[in-house]
């Protein structure tokens, strides 16, 4: 069953230069979907349209079968969380303060979070392995630690759908794998629907249920990793020569760049 339906969506930042053209896509409940594609292919834009940060010029988005346009901003925040690519960290909020902010959609109209909210925040800091940094200002953390703090904040929203824009961009390989494993287990164990933009085709292949590959604002292919990640398609979309074989320790395709 589809939790999010994208129906014939088009969007342009500048009139006459479409960023997305007639995109249609269904995101199934509980699945882990990755969006891949070259720079400028419209991945991040699509993600922002899914969270109604941008409104599509044409077409419709539906969340649980209801048009997204009819939700209030707070309703969306209780159902979907979005982790943007750039997070600004000029002010020294502590990790725990940042994660507690994720409770805002559930505590609207209140001045303070309650004990239950703190419990949720602690749990999410544990899941993202930043519990030991709770009282540290985010401005003193490494890029990867800060990234995990913002993922913990999105989890503290207790959303049905989690949208992430390159969640592993600043992470070392161990923490890249940790984040993807965490997203995978949340999706399998709790039924969380995950949509993540990534540039790492191999992580996408290993951990996601489906991959949607974007090319110049359209969906070039969507399906299981082995259906989408083929030599010809990667040559066509990324203009890269690759070999695709089987991952030695997993039942996933493995992409190796030749030139």
């Amino acid at each position: 069953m589809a939790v999010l339906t994208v129906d014939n969506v088009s969007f342009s930042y500048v009139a006459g230069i479409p960023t997305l053209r007639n995109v249609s896509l269904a995101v199934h409940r509980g699945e882990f979907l990755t969006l891949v594609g070259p720079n400028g292919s419209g991945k991040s834009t699509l993600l922002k349209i899914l969270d109604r940060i941008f409104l599509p010029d044409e077409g419709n988005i539906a969340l649980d079968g209801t048009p997204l346009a009819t939700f209030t901003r707070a309703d969306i925040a209780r159902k979907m969380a979005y982790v943007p690519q750039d997070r600004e960290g000029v002010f020294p909020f502590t990790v725990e303060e940042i994660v507690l902010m994720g409770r805002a959609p559930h505590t609207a109209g209140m001045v303070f979070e309650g004990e239950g909210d703190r419990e949720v925040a602690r749990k999410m800091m544990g899941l993202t392995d930043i519990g030991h940094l709770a009282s540290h200002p985010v401005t003193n953390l490494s890029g990867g630690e800060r990234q995990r703090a913002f993922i913990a904040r999105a989890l503290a929203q207790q959303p049905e759908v989690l949208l992430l824009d390159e969640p592993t961009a600043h992470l070392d390989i161990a923490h890249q794998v940790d984040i993807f494993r965490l997203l995978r287990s949340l999706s399998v164990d709790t039924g969380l629907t995950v949509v993540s933009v990534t540039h790492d085709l191999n992580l996408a292949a290993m951990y996601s249920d489906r991959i949607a590959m974007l090319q110049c604002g359209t969906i070039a292919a969507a399906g299981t990793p082995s259906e989408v990640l083929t030599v010809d398609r990667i040559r066509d979309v990324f203009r890269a020569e690759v070999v695709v074989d089987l991952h030695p320790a997993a039942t996933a395709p493995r992409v190796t760049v030749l030139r």
Partner: protein
Amino acid sequence: MNQFLPDRRSPLTPRRLAFILGVLTAILASAGLLALSVGSVAVPFRAVIGSCTGLFPVDSLERLIVIDIRLPRVLLAFLVGAGLSVAGAVLQALLRNPLAEPYILGISSGGTMGTILAIALASGIGHIVAPAASFAGSALVMLLVYALAHRRGQLEPYTLLLAGVMVGAFFNALVLLTVALFNQELRNAFLWLMGNLSGASMDALLIAGPLTLLATIPAFVFARQYNLIATGDETALQLGVDVRALRRRSYAIASIITGAVVSVSGVVGFVGLIIPHVTRMIFGPDHRLLIPASFLLGGTFLILADTLARTIIAPAEIPVGAVTAVIGAPVFIYLLRRR
């Protein structure tokens, strides 16, 4: 005290908020008491308290000095310091820039232009003409800057900043031109440019007081949303904040406070920049504490600065803006170097 320092801090609780604001209120009251007591004639604390509360009988001269002469000025200093600090804290959150301050939107230059014109064209002006002209100038600049910064139905922070700086520069040039043309009033104009509370009167308070205090109430109400917007527009939006409306309302709040304050005090520098900054360093960036604490600390700071301004070379006095700059600039440079 360790738990209040920003380096290792647990999230804000109602108890801690109440405790800190209680302490800051006590400090504010002490500063007020001191300011009412010292001056060209020293009035004992007991007489000050008696004059304000009527708890014990007081000499009528002492009562006159405390209530009619010093109280309006102390209240004005509090109002100006508290208002500028809240406006500064709000703008720093919205622009996500700890160097933002109330005058960055160009409003003070409009207020100055209005006052200078009033001084130049109507010598011997009353208590009402100059503040009214100043507020009109501030309002003009506010509308101009907003009109320039409005694009596709929303206020863009960087366009707003640039518009504020440019309109500010333009009006500052007009101010200099006017001062050059009417140079017999140069001294008054310079006092204004430096910030000056010597014109304090109940009339000034009645104009600026309600306006400033009413405009600070929404700043307290929006405190939680400022926490969210301080970590990014998109994250605030995705957490359910109506970012456009918050921006529009908050710029209006900051503009009204700044316009009101400038109309009765001129351009008192550094308070709106330093106080929120220092408050954040002491108590952390949570706006539920930062905004009320800046309000109290800003008021306290300006009461003390103005007490210094009117006593240091008594019976003459120096503009309070000179005191805040002389204290504020080195403190700020120290803080910047320490980071």
